[in-house]
């Protein structure tokens, strides 16, 4: 039995290797596409009330579950929703989670993910740029990604404000 298991493990090795090559950003990669064709109107309305409605493909399902279960203390703000609305929005987020996230991690902040950090390193953006009044915070995607609200982060449509 032990031998058989060993054999199986060896046989599976190439598969594991393949998965690893797919392991961009240590497995913390955003999804493609970020947004499904069919979007949920409640997600758009509720999440978009205080900030852009961040696309579900930006985080894995576990992140969305954690985030949606703690909305009464949402980054220092009470953003609580009615139970049925919460359920519908969570379902939409979870169903359309990042399809390229392989890691077990589930950060609450999009800016904590490895892909975000890699794309926004100091070699690209000097630390003081983030502090500009026109940008304020790395959570303010649309300050530079003009079409961020439509989940369009194409680098040809970036304009860093003064």
């Amino acid at each position, binding site marked *: 039995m032990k031998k058989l298991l060993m054999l199986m493990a060896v046989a599976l090795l190439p598969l594991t290797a393949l998965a690893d090559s797919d392991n961009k950003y240590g497995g913390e990669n955003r999804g493609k596409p970020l947004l499904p064709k069919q979007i949920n109107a409640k997600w758009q309305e509720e999440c978009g009330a*205080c900030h852009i409605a961040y696309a579900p493909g930006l985080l894995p399902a576990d992140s969305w579950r954690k985030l949606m279960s703690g909305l009464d203390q949402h980054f*220092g703000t*009470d953003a609580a929703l*009615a139970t049925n609305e919460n359920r519908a929005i969570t379902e939409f987020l979870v169903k359309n989670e990042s399809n390229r996230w392989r890691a077990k991690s589930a950060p609450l902040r999009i800016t904590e993910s490895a892909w975000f950090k890699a794309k926004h390193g100091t070699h690209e953006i000097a630390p003081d740029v983030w502090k500009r009044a026109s940008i304020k*915070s790395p959570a303010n995607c649309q300050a530079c990604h003009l079409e961020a609200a439509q989940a369009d982060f194409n680098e040809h449509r970036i304009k860093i404000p003064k």
Partner: protein
Amino acid sequence: MKKTGIISAIALSAIFTFSAPLMAAENTILESYRAAARQENPAFKDFSSTRGQAFHTAKSGDLSCASCHTENIKAHGKHATTGKDILPLAPSANPDRFADAAKVEKWFKRNCNDVLKRACTAQEKGDFIAYTLSVK
């Protein structure tokens, strides 16, 4: 007896007919807070737009309602943290305000918790709505 009954019925329907347009002009959500305020406090008299205005600008810690909604509630506001644009609070400038009871309750709950770290009373909510309605 029968006659007075009929007369008072006519009188009542006359009052109803005449007061109906006036009632329609009132904010129904404000009226439901009036009922809640009576429940909350048997000595409740009325809402006050002056008190509502003072409530709007009163700071609790770093925040007041005006921190995001600005002092001029006919103007656009700006979210204190995210910087997102907020549509005007005064129904005279934004007719969608105070038109959906569930939405009003949702935001009172959230914002009272954020600013005051507690729920608002029906008196406070009513004063506040009365203030927003008074700004023409």
